[in-house]
């Protein structure tokens, strides 16, 4: 599937090319950008895939129709080269030099939640990974939300920021855990991390795990149905209140809001509901169902 990604063009004249490519292909763009994750006290340097040249702490989410190939424009606004890939199966990326622009062809994909992002150590380690939602466009039948899950070790991030590869033999001790690059309680300020619906509504939740470890989401108050999964296809159709999201997995869940109230959703690996060791925090959000 990944081999279907085609490196179409490489151009130094970024700004003009983007305008031309958007006009030509009618597609959105991703900007590889470097900035500061100011939500964390350590304010670590991070890399993101932004939807525009304006900096955002959150990676941009892409949508595509099912079964249709499309193009994607990627601009490397960073000062170092990066390797980008659609993370579906064996990742085979393309290298984009600083200031360069690439146009890649995304293959026709079945409905589901897919991961994409930078696969070079620095780009992945500093968090430039996001989600491709295929065939999940919101319509009158359901609301759509997304959760980009990740775990972070600030020591590792500091190493990448300093241009040093982290010691591969050092124990991994993640100290932050995020949904859409937000840690609780700021997850409640993100309209995609917080699920706010009316009683009787159906919603779909696209979930991707970009971290270095598996996560397992527990839903209070509800069971959800697994609609799609790239790593656990045998679980499609299962009704669950506790859903493992394996490292590298993209999964789509359906929730029917059949009772009113406010209910937490959180990682049940409980080290992940902390911020720098403090409880509550991390991978924790809520479902609010208005009566």
């Amino acid at each position, binding site marked *: 599937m990944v081999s279907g990604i085609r490196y179409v063009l490489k151009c130094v004249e970024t700004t003009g090319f983007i305008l031309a490519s958007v006009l030509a292909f009618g597609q959105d763009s991703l900007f590889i950008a470097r900035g500061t994750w100011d939500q964390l006290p350590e304010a670590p340097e991070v890399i993101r895939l932004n939807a525009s040249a304006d900096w955002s702490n959150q990676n941009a989410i892409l949508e595509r129709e099912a079964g249709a190939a499309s193009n994607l424009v990627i601009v490397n606004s960073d000062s170092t080269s990066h390797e980008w890939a659609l993370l579906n199966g064996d990742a085979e990326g393309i290298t984009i030099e600083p200031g360069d622009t690439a146009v890649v062809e995304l293959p026709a994909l079945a409905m589901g939640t897919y991961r994409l992002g930078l696969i070079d150590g620095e780009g992945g380690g500093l968090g430039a990974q996001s989600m491709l939602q295929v065939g999940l466009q919101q319509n009158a039948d359901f609301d759509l939300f997304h959760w980009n899950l990740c775990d972070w070790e600030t020591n590792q991030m500091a190493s990448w920021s300093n241009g040093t590869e982290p010691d591969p033999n050092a*124990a991994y001790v*993640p100290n932050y855990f995020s949904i859409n690059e937000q840690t609780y309680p700021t997850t409640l300020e993100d309209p995609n991390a917080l699920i706010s619906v009316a009683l009787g509504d159906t919603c779909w939740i696209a979930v991707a795990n970009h971290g270095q470890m598996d996560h397992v989401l527990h839903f209070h*108050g509800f069971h959800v149905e697994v609609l799609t999964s790239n790593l656990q296809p045998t679980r499609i159709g*299962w009704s669950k209140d506790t859903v493992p999201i394996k490292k590298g997995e993209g999964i789509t869940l359906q929730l029917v809001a059949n*009772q009113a*109230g406010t*209910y*937490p959703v959180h990682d049940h690996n409980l080290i992940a509901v902390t911020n720098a*060791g403090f*409880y509550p925090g991390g991978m924790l959000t809520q479902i609010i169902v208005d009566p």
Partner: protein
Amino acid sequence: MSTIQHILRTVALITTTWLATSVHAQQQPPQLFSGMEGYTFLPDGTPVPIWGYGWVADGFITLPAPLLTYTEGESVQLNFTNPSPESHTIHLHGLDVDQANDGVPGTSFLVTTGDDATYSFDANYPGTFLYHCHVTTTLHLTMGMYGMVLVTRPDLTLYEGGPAYAEDVPLLFSDLEVATNLDPVGSFPFHDIRPDVFMINGESGSQLEAPERIVHFEPGQRLALRLGSMAYSRVVCQFPAELNATCYMSDGRPLPTPFEPDALEIYPGERFTVLIDPEPGWDGSLPCEFWSMVDETLESVENIHIRDAALNVDEPEFTSAIGYPNPTRDQITWNEARQIEVWNAYGVAVSNVRFEQGVLDVAGWPAGTYVARIDGVRSVRFVVIE
């Protein structure tokens, strides 16, 4: 005195008073209580402090907490009292209860020290569920505040139209980090908790080899393994082919397509119901691996021993662990006990243990809660009053 020592001493005194009143409450409907002064014992006999739940009528907490069993369709009133020095709740994990009864501080009610509460819900779905405290959950769970809930059907089928079975076998996986349980306050930062004891129904290693822990089966009579995890680890059950295992349910719902598991992964908070129909004459183990969720290292393999009942041999009887009187001022008796070891509320071994013919002399001991291990195999709590 450290903060936790102060907590334990306070608990011991509160418990002394509270136990006396519980005698009068035994005719009341079953009621859970929360405590922060219990112990579990490692296979080598080392006592490890735990927090947890127990039945008021019993007067002690257990690891895991008591099994709660309900019938499908039952309207449940779960009574709870909290005599411990910290606030606690009961979260009914997977039962999809309403917000008010969800057991989450902030969105549901908190049961503070000295308070009683009742959790109300309808057991609408048969299956395997869990319960646990949801206050500072990362800590309270690793301290031991969790148990299993079974919702069953009178006709012993798993669900309407589902397969029949002969008997439920609850198997709750969990783990703990000894250093955290010894010093909960000093366990910060919580993201650094790394379990080093891995348990099935609160026991591990050689404890699971005890005769009363062996799961016996009658050939042709299917057993329902109720598998649930409150561990911080990922558990993988490696089913031997001779068990003829079929997985029918997860998280209290039937699976669209039952499957025959080889290696069944159970993540923290997940549950599975697996029917086994072992080969006649089979006597073996179901290995359960505990894998670190952080770095994917294999931490431990704990075994569930399963044996054809026809192969069973007479096992030696253990000395009764029921001591009397309890609470006591002067002495407590365990009939025919040959060895008695005692720890105080701080986990320190009491060195001047004097006993003769099962009678332990406690005259002059400081008032409080103690833990005795009888003949190296049974542990029980007793209370000395002034």
